[in-house]
């Protein structure tokens, strides 16, 4: 296998306490050495342009790849192409496909598609309940054996406390997280937007933050009862963050994630720039400034463990309807890194090592998968990021099959230079061409 020496990049590897200029030697599919002034020793040498960061591969633990069954929205191939273009070396994909990923057959199908695409690593997440119907547990041990790294009924919260209790209890034998989309269905009702002034002004039915926090509190109590491993998905309400802090303070095994859109946007987006834009309709909904600010505070103080995108591609036709009728969700894989740099790093909310923890170290730890580290011997999954790159978001040129993003046309500071999976460059940003970096990366 060939050797590649990444020369003199700024290595940010909090798992190994590194933040500084280092050389990194890739040997085949793994990292052979990290150090200063490493000899070329027959390796192909790539000089890192100044300012680029060499980070452990980013992992998006909340992605909808839509395959099987909804290939008009996304496929494993297009979704993983979007992932690597967004700097992610791995994604965990949600089970609400058609059919639902509630059995080893579907898991195997997704993994076969991922192997065929051969871009980002794909970690399937299985269903909690058969058909995500909330009645009977899915065959969780078989899902685990087939390659699922967690279970969730994402999109449909686990409605009964009893089934959630059983899921948390059952999975303790594998130390496998149960991921919950927290939403008390009767309180959500037929709501389509955050309950507050903006929804009221637009005549949209509201969903209060408590619809989320009530279920988070229920699940945290159940995790305490069972000693199960709970992960709260796409948190949006300040009350939910308080619930997670409460759980953590009691030693409950609970972690949580937030999406870039929930720490960047608010429900003001419902009214302007485009009133009733269905690309700001997602579940949980964009909430008010106090919630957005609470998410930033949670990222800053460490209460929030992970940034995940909830990448939810939908076809243009599905979104080109009345706000009430449009499906919930926006894409996220190809905008997350830019939003994180622009709104978190350059805004002084987090340090670079902390950002790498949120996007790489912690997702790997929570899902119990390889990654999150540039240790010698680790898989060579590496994200090379360009914190000062000027990025103009263009929905039309995205790799995802869908275009449903509210960030189209935004100018952001920070982006992706290249993505390496298993020692192989799978994405190099064309904007880096002028430095000769692109040619060097592709080899």
């Amino acid at each position, binding site marked *: 296998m060939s050797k590649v020496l990444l020369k003199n990049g700024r290595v940010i590897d909090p798992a190994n306490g590194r933040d500084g200029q280092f050389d990194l030697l890739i040997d085949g599919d793994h990292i052979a050495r990290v150090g200063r002034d490493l000899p070329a020793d027959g390796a192909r040498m790539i000089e890192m342009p100044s300012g680029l960061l060499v980070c452990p591969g980013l992992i998006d633990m909340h992605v909808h790849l839509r395959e099987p069954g909804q290939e008009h929205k996304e496929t494993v191939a297009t979704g993983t192409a979007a992932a690597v273009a967004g700097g992610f070396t791995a994604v965990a994909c949600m089970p609400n496909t058609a059919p639902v990923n509630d059995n080893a057959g579907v898991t195997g199908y997704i993994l076969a598609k991922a192997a065929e695409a051969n871009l980002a690593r794909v970690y399937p997440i299985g269903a909690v309940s058969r058909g995500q119907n909330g009645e009977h547990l899915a065959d969780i041990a078989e899902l685990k054996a087939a390659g699922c790294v967690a279970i969730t009924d994402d999109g449909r919260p686990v409605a009964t406390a009893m089934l959630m209790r059983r899921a948390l209890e059952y999975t303790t034998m594998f130390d496998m997280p149960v991921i919950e989309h927290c939403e008390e269905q009767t309180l959500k009702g037929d709501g389509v937007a955050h309950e507050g002034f903006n929804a*009221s002004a637009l*005549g949209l039915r509201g969903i209060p933050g408590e619809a989320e926090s009530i279920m988070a509190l229920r699940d945290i109590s159940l995790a305490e009862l069972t000693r199960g491993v709970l992960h709260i998905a796409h948190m949006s309400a300040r009350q939910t963050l308080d619930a997670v802090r409460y759980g953590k303070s009691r030693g409950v095994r609970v972690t949580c994630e937030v999406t870039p859109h929930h720490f960047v946007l608010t429900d003001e987006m419902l009214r302007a720039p485009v009133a009733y834009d269905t690309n700001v309709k997602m579940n949980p909904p964009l909430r008010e400034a106090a919630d957005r600010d609470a998410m930033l505070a949670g990222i800053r103080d460490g209460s929030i463990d992970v940034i995940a995108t909830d990448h939810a591609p939908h076809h243009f036709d599905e979104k080109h309807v009345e706000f*009430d*009728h449009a499906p919930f969700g926006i894409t996220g894989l190809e905008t997350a890194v830019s939003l994180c740099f622009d709104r978190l790093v350059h805004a002084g909310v987090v340090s670079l090592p902390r950002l790498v923890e949120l996007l790489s170290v912690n997702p790997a730890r929570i899902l119990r998968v390889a990654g999150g580290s540039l240790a010698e011997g680790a898989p060579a999954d590496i994200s090379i990021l360009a914190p000062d790159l000027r990025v103009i978001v263009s929905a039309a040129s995205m790799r995802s099959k869908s275009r449903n993003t509210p960030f189209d046309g935004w100018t952001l500071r920070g982006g992706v230079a290249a993505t390496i999976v298993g020692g192989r460059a799978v994405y190099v940003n064309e904007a880096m061409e002028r430095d000769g970096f692109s040619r060097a990366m592709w080899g």
Partner: protein
Amino acid sequence: MKKDLLSIDDLTRDEIHLVLDTAEAMREIGQRPIKKVPTLRGKTIVNLFYEPSTRTRTSFEIAEKRLSADTLNIAVATSSVLKGETLADTAMNIEAMAPDMIVLRHASSGAGHLLSRICRSRIINAGDGMHEHPTQALLDAFTIREHKKRIDGLKVAIVGDLLHSRVLRSNVLLLTKLGADVWVCGPPTFVPSGIERFGVRVSPRVDEAADGADVIMMLRIQQERMQGAFIPSLREYFTTFGMTRERVARAKPDVIIMHPGPMNRGVEIASDVADGPYSVILEQVSNGVAVRMAVLYLLAGGAEAD
């Protein structure tokens, strides 16, 4: 004026007064033996109604015909929204036939905004979901101004199902823009979150809202709201919030009682109030035609079109 009338927010204070002044002139046309002027001759107006409507559709149609526009009514059963053509496709098809205006009634809030992004035709919102019904607020303002000679400084109490009412939202925007002291009143289950940010007073006590009011505007209670457990019973609603003669007596002696219709007698309003001396409910209906004529005329270009 803007291209479309989707919300009262599309109109400035001056434009609202212009609509109301123009409506005065339009009303005169309706009192002639031959109730027709050639103002909109050669203009095509499509009345696209996705919800059943008697009053509003008829009112628009009469207004259009009095202005000599060529009008066309399309009534779409609500169910076909789900199984048939999308609103966007319907809009593009209608647009392909080059109408000048589309009057849209739709069950989804913001449906007019979607149409407005697709169509070059001017869009008039004739009621979109729980959002707005701007021509209703304009005809209400016209009726109030006629009786009170002003709107600025009046106490207007709006009582009923505030949450689901598009009439409420348009009236609140218009009346606060023109300087009225607006009170909204209903059981807390019917009060939209954050409504005080509209600059209104909120009270669950109908006596307080009615006290010294110049105008009392009742909103319809929809029977189906019972299922959502918003209120315990229609009977209790009437005893707690229904507009009775006793409650009207708390208002100013020259109070006017309004209702956008259709009314539920004995639920939100007692019959003797609806039919009583203070009621202007049927005047609202008459004024609707004149106000819609004014809106159509001004959106078509007003004096420039003459």
